[in-house]
C-alpha cells in the first residue's frame, strides 16, 4: 500500500518599498502597497484561483478519496483578505469539503525560532488562532518556515502540543534510509516526522517544464508509475511543494493544470494507492525509527541548509539587529509598531540579500523586488533604523509620562538629528542605555559561528 500525501505551501511576504536614508525618522510606511497588491492579484489569477478550482472539482469527483494539505502563512492570508478576498473564499470552500487539512506555521513566515523562541511561540499561536478562525481547524501538524528543522525544534514544537512535523528528506541526513516512512525525531519521542520525497516533488515543482530533462515531457502515467513503484519500499510518498508551482512557476501552457487534473485518477487506478492528509498519514503509520538531525536543515537550494537566509554578513547583520530590538518593540505597547517589526521577520527579506548568485540565483530572483541583494540590505537596514527611532520615541514618551507626569516635558528631537545618529550597522546599540536588562540575545552567536 502506498499513501500519497500532498502538502502545498502558500506564502507571500509584505515586500518593502524603496525606503531611503532620507525617509528615516520621517516616514513609517515601509510596505509597497501597490506592488504587493499587483503580485497577489497576478498570482491569484494565474495560480490560486484556477488551482483551487481544480482541487475542489477533484475532491468532488473522487468523493472523498482525493485529499491535500496546505500551510498558508499569516501574511499571505492577511494579503488575501486585503487584496483578493475571493482567494480566501475559495480556500474556505476547500476547507468545507473535509478533505483538506491546514497546518500551522509561524504567522509571519519567519526564522524566529533561530533567534527568539518566545517570539516564535507567539507567532505560532497567532497563526493557530488565524487558521481556527478562518477554516475552523485546530491543527496538530506543524511545519516550520522553509522546512527549517532540527531535533531541538521538534522537541520545542512537541511541547507546544503538536503531534506531527515536516522536514526535508535531505540525502545528507537520510543516508541509506528512505523518505517514504514515518520517523521519530530524536529528543521528541511523541512526534511523528514526515520527510519530503524531494525527487518526486521536484519532478513536478522544478523539472516539469525543463526541456533538457531526459524525462520531458512528463506524463501522468509515467509519474504514477514512479509513485506506485514505491510500493513495498515505504508507506507514504510526501509530495511537498510551493503552491505557486501550479500556474506561476510552471505556466499554464506547460500543461501543469492538465497534469494535476489527471494525476489523481491515474494514481487511484492502482488499488493499493490512496491519498492522505499529513495528520492522517501520521495516525495511519507507525514510526520505523529515530532520526537524529542535530544541525539545522531546510528545503532551500542545493545546500539544504540556512545559507539562503543567513549565509553572508549582510543577512547576519540584518537578522541579528532585527531580533535584538524585538523585545523592546513589543514593550512599546504600540500595536502598529509591533506589527511592522513582525512583518520584517518574514524570511523573504533575508532571502533577497543572498549573494549565492551563480548556481541558485535564478530562484532567488523570483519575485525579488530588488536589482541586487545589496539593495535589499540597504532598504531593510534603513527601515530598521526608523523602527529604532520609533521605539526610542515610544520609550521617551512612556518615561516622560511616568516621571514628569505631563506631556510638556517630552520634547522630540528633529528627524535629521535622529537619522544622523541612527544610520548604522548596529542601530540597536543606541537603545542599550534605554533598557539594558531586556536585551537578551538568544542562541544567535553560536549559530552564526556555525555558518
Amino acid at each position, binding site marked *: 500500500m502506498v499513501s500519497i500525501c500532498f502538502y502545498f505551501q502558500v506564502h507571500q511576504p509584505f515586500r518593502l518599498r524603496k525606503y*531611503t*536614508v*532620507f525617509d528615516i525618522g520621517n516616514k513609517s510606511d515601509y510596505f509597497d502597497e501597490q506592488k504587493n497588491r499587483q503580485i497577489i492579484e497576478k498570482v491569484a489569477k494565474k495560480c490560486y484561483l484556477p488551482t483551487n478550482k481544480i482541487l475542489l472539482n477533484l475532491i468532488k469527483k473522487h468523493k472523498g478519496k482525493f485529499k491535500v494539505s496546505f500551510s498558508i502563512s499569516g501574511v499571505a492570508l492577511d494579503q488575501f483578505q486585503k487584496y483578493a478576498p475571493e482567494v480566501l473564499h475559495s480556500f474556505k470552500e476547500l476547507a468545507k469539503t473535509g478533505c483538506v487539512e491546514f497546518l500551522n506555521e509561524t504567522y509571519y513566515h519567519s526564522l524566529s525560532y533561530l533567534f527568539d523562541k518566545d517570539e516564535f511561540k507567539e507567532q505560532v499561536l497567532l497563526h493557530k488562532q488565524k487558521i481556527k478562525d478562518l477554516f475552523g481547524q485546530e491543527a496538530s501538524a506543524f511545519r516550520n518556515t522553509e522546512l527549517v528543522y532540527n531535533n531541538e525544534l521538534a522537541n520545542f514544537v512537541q511541547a507546544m502540543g503538536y503531534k506531527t512535523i515536516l522536514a526535508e528528506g535531505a540525502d545528507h541526513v537520510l543516508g541509506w534510509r528512505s523518505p517514504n516512512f514515518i520517523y521519530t525525531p530524536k529528543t521528541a519521542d511523541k512526534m511523528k516526522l514526515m520527510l519530503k520525497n524531494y525527487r518526486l516533488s521536484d519532478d513536478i515543482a522544478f523539472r516539469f517544464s525543463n526541456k533538457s530533462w531526459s524525462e520531458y515531457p512528463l506524463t501522468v502515467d509515467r509519474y504514477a508509475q514512479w509513485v506506485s513503484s514505491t510500493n513495498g519500499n515505504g508507506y507514504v510518498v510526501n509530495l511537498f511543494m510551493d503552491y505557486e508551482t501550479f500556474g506561476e512557476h510552471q505556466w499554464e501552457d506547460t500543461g501543469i493544470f492538465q497534469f494535476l487534473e489527471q494525476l489523481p485518477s491515474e494514481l487511484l487506478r492502482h488499488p493499493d494507492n490512496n491519498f492522505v492528509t499529513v495528520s492522517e498519514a501520521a495516525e495511519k503509520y507507525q514510526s520505523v525509527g529515530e532520526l537524529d538531525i542535530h544541525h539545522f536543515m531546510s528545503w532551500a537550494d542545493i545546500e539544504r541548509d540556512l545559507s539562503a537566509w543567513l549565509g*553572508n*554578513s*549582510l543577512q*547576519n*547583520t540584518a537578522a541579528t539587529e532585527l531580533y535584538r530590538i524585538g523585545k523592546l518593540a513589543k514593550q512599546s505597547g504600540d500595536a502598529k509598531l509591533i506589527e511592522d517589526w513582525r512583518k520584517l521577520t518574514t524570511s523573504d527579506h533575508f532571502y533577497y540579500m543572498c*549573494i549565492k*548568485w551563480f548556481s541558485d540565483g535564478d530562484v532567488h530572483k523570483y519575485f525579488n523586488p530588488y*536589482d*541586487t541583494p*545589496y*539593495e535589499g*540590505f*540597504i532598504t531593510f*537596514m*534603513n527601515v530598521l533604523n526608523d523602527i529604532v527611532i520609533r521605539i526610542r520615541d515610544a520609550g521617551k514618551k512612556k518615561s516622560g509620562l511616568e516621571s514628569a507626569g505631563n506631556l510638556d516635558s517630552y520634547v522630540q528631537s528633529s528627524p*535629521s538629528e535622529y*537619522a*544622523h545618529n541612527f*544610520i*548604522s*550597522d548596529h542601530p540597536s546599540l543606541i537603545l542599550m542605555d534605554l533598557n539594558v536588562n531586556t536585551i537578551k540575545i538568544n542562541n544567535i552567536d553560536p549559530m552564526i559561528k556555525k555558518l
Partner: protein
Amino acid sequence: MKVLMLGWELPPFFAGGVGMVCYHLTGALCQQGVDITYVMPFGPRMIRSDYMKILVADNLFPRLRFQLKEVDSLLSAYQTPEGYDEEFRKHLLELSPTERARSLYGPNVFQEAYLFARKVKLIALQEDFDVIHAHDHWTFPAAIAAKQATGKPLVVHVHITEFDKSGGTSVNQRVYDMEREGMHAADLIIVVSNLIKQRIMNNYGVPESKIRVIYNAAEPVDPTVYHDASKIKETDKIVLFVGRITLQKGPDYFVEAAKKVLELDQNVKFIMAGTGDMLPRMIERVAQLGIADKFIFPGFCSREEVAKLNKIADVFVMPSVSEPFGLVPLEAMAQETPAIISKQSGVSEVIQNVLKVDFWDVNDIANKVLAVLHYQSLHNELKQHGFVEVRSMTWDKPASQCLDVYNELLRMKKGG
C-alpha cells in the same frame, strides 16, 4: 589568423580608455595565436612591441611625415573638432611662417583622418592579412580604403558614439557621418555594450544582425599601491569621482548628491579627480552650496595617482549620463573600494557586485553613499565580492570573442 588593426592611439601615446583597451586586447589576441599588424597615424619614430608589429603611418612616408609632424601632438581620440581647431590655431601662432605653411597641410582632424586613409591604403596593399579591425571613427575612412583596396572583410569596433560624448545635445554632423559611413561599410560591428548596440541601431540605422556585443575586461592593477591618507581618514570618510569633468560623466549629479550626503553626515570628504570643460562650473556650484570645504579638486591625475585615490577612498561613484562601457569603477574595485555606478553604463550590464543608480536620482546616490559609509557589513561584502569579480574579468574572454568574429567574417566571405 592575420589581422590588420587600425587604431588612433596606443599606450603610452594615448588619451583615454580606447588606447588602453586596444593595448590589452591586442596582447590577449596575440596570446591566442593571432598575428596583428597595428597601424596608427602618429607616434615615435621607433616603436616596438614584443608581440605584434606596429606601424606608425607617419614614419613610413618620410615626405608626408615631414609635412605632418608638427601637428602630431594635437591629435587624440577624445579631441573634439572644435578643440582641435582651437589648439591648432594656438599651435600655428607659435610657428614660423614657413612652418606654418607646412602645417596647414593638415588643418583639421578630419583631414588627418583622410590623410591616414591614403597611407593605410598603401600599407594594406603591401601587408598580408585576413581581416581588417578598426577602432572608433577616426580610423573608419582608413578602414574603408583598406577594404576597397584589398577586398578583405572589415569589422569596426565601436567604443563610443558621438551621442555619448555630447550627451545627445550637440551632435557634430561630420563626426556622425564618418561614424555612420564606417558602420555601414563594415561587414560586422563590435560594440562594447548593449547600450551602444541599441544606440547604433536606433541612431545609425544599423541592422541588429550585424552587431556583436563584446564587453571589455578589467585592467590589471598594482595591488601594492599605497598612500597615507590617515590625516583625512582620522575624521572623515572619502567619496571619490574619477573622470573627465564633462557633461557625459555626470559630475553635476555627484555634487548635488554630495550636498544631500552632507545633510546627514558632515564627516565626509569628496574628491573629484579629473579635468574638463565643466570643472569651473563645478567649483562654483560647490561654493554656492556652501560645501567647498568638503571638496578636493586635484585636477588631472596620472594612472598611479588614480590608483592611490582608489586605494584610500571608502566609496567610488560613477554617475555617468551615458557611458558606453566604463572601466574606471573596475579599477576602484580592484583596489578593494566599493563602487556605485550609473545604470546608464555598459559596465553595469556585466558586473553584479556594485550598487547601481539612475544618474539623475541624486537622492538614491546619496542614499547608497551613506549606506556604504555607515553599514560596515555592506562595505565589506561589496569590497570582497567586487574584488573577486573584477579579478575574474580577464582579457582572454573578449579576445576569444574577437577571434570568433574574425572567423565569422571569413566564413561570410567564403559563403558569398
